[in-house]
């Protein structure tokens, strides 16, 4: 019996009970739809987390000052003033496997340019920052080491600031005033988007760290060091070596705790990634359960169908159908149900994913792999749950089947 004939027989049988066929498919439709939707949402969430890791900078380690504890009152992490600019140079030059190290301090201020003004974050750093944070310059240039040494009054604008202060363009070469100090704009940073915590990273102005400390904040210490390791594998070693170096430079005895904290940002993000993976897995688990329930529905209806059509089976056997022909007939029928359900489920799953992306602004990614997986799992369900009823049909005794009332 050719596959075309098997499909035709299956199609006729399913059309005969159209309502029942659709209700039977419902389980598979929901199951496959759930597989596609959950995978799209899971993949979207993971991609978002990965993009955030990417935007932070490669293999990033952050050093922040420790907490001051005075008379039993702790002022919290970052309140110490022990991180100094020479520490950064020492890390960059002596710690092995460091790709770059940059200091970073910030303050907030009103920035004025002509008739426009904008309240933003003023960051102070060194040219290493662009490498450490994987952040490139879109227009003009970043400031140089020489300008850092001279505490030059130069600034690089973030994309958001540029758009607000210079909606017409022409930022490079203009003068902006920050806390009554005029800065010459030498460049504009490429857009970087939101940070992992929802802050607009492009809403910033970068100036040399020396200029920031001398002219804008009056501080002598640095708020953060950004250190990047050459490879992800080198990050733990860089963390250890940086800790030892800083303890040495800060003259801490064995009994004294660190006066700084080192954070492996990638680790934090990895935890978030793992969390989103777990959520995706959980959703997929629910989807699998509904697929199994759908499969049981198919098996149930196929068993009913075999019983109802016992005489037909007997007749087919009498006119020459072998057990294999009957087995295939019912298997193809179950498969047709499952595959049709799968295809409808894929359509609904893709629709739901796109809908939740459009309405809920969730990041979703519908991958061809998830569609293939959805279809294959419906196929598998059809075979697994169609086999038993089909085998029962094939094992019928033609005489008994012919006499069945």
């Amino acid at each position, binding site marked *: 019996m050719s596959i075309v004939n098997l499909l035709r027989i299956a199609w006729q049988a399913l059309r005969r009970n159209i309502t029942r066929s659709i209700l039977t498919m419902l389980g598979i439709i929901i199951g496959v739809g759930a597989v596609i939707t959950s995978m799209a949402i899971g993949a979207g969430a993971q991609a978002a987390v990965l993009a955030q890791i990417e935007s932070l900078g490669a293999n990033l380690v952050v050093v922040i000052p420790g907490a001051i504890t005075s008379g039993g009152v702790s002022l919290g992490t970052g309140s110490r003033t022990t991180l100094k600019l020479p520490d950064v140079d020492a890390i960059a030059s002596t710690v092995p496997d460091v790709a770059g190290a940059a200091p970073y301090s910030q303050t907030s201020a009103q920035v004025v340019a002509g008739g426009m003004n904008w309240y933003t974050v003023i960051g102070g750093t060194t040219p290493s920052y662009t490498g450490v944070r994987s952040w490139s310059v879109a227009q003009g240039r970043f400031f140089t080491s020489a300008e850092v040494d001279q505490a030059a009054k130069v600034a690089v604008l973030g994309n958001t600031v540029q758009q607000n202060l210079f909606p017409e363009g022409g930022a490079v070469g203009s003068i902006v005033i920050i806390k009554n100090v005029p800065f010459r704009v030498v460049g504009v940073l490429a857009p970087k988007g939101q940070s992992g915590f929802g802050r607009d990273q492009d809403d910033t102005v970068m100036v040399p760290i020396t200029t920031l400390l001398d002219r804008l904040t009056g501080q002598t210490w640095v708020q953060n060091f950004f250190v990047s390791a050459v490879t992800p594998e080198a990050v733990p070693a860089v963390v250890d070596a940086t800790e030892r170096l800083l303890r040495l430079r800060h003259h801490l005895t064995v009994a004294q705790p660190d006066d700084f904290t080192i954070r492996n940002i990638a680790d934090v993000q990895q935890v978030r990634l793992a969390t989103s993976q777990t959520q995706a897995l959980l959703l997929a688990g629910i989807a699998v359960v509904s697929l199994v329930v759908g499969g049981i529905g198919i098996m149930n209806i196929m068993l009913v169908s075999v019983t109802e059509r016992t005489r037909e089976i007997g007749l087919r056997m009498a006119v020459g159908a072998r057990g*294999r022909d009957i087995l295939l007939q019912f298997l193809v029928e179950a498969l047709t149900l499952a595959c049709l359900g799968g295809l409808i489920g894929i359509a609904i799953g893709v629709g739901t994913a796109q809908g939740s992306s459009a309405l809920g602004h969730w990041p979703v990614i519908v991958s061809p792999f998830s569609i293939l997986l959805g279809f294959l799992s419906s196929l598998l369900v059809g075979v697994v749950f169609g086999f038993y009823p089909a085998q029962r049909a094939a094992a019928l005794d033609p*005489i008994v089947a012919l006499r069945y009332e």
Partner: protein
Amino acid sequence: MTDGALARGRATEAAPSTREPLIDVRDMTKVYGEGDTAVRALRGVSLRVQADEFVAIMGPSGSGKSTFMHLLGCLDRPTSGSYRLAGQEVSRLSRDELAAVRNRRIGFVFQSFNLLARTTAQENVELPLLYAGVPRDLRVQRARALLQQVGLGDRLGHRPSELSGGQQQRVAIARALANGAPLLMADEPTGNLDSASSAEIMTLFRELNRRDGITVVLVTHDVSVAAWSNRVVTFRDGLIIDDRPSAEAVPRRVRESMLGTAPALEARP
């Protein structure tokens, strides 16, 4: 009707040599169950049927005639004994081999027609051809020719529910003939029909037998149906107790009243 051409291929296949019977059953037994509860449905039956015979099998319920019919129809295997069908020993074949024998050598006609519901007459006739792997064009062509032959050329697209009982049984007969089987097995073929339709169906059987040389074996408990046959085999308690020409087995008045209603037949070749 153009049945001659259709029948000829069948006749050559059916009778390979001069004297070999189409059906040759020897010492056939069939036991259901085991031990004390075993039921001996057939207790050693031997029967030879020549190609182109028309045999009626009679007997009361439980006589073993249905069991014998199933074994002749290759729907089941005997417990012991041999069965040669058209020269082939079929008593020890596997399920699938039996299916192939049924497909090619035997056509079944049932009391309840057993047509597929919601399926056209033509598709019903195509069914055995489908399992024989006949290509679509040939299937359609053959099914149409057969329906024409049984007088339903204008009912090809009708479904069983749109046909009378007699018409449905004609579709079933066309289906039984589809693969050119030399042997037609009928189980109470007129049991669900009124007397006029019954006569039509029996006439068709006799026509197929006399003109096309198809061997007909039919099971009935109705002596007026048996009157249409040439030979009546009677079963009782799992044994053949009587086997004689129908002229002797069926009372004269029954034969005359039955055959008197039949349309005239052309002479046997």
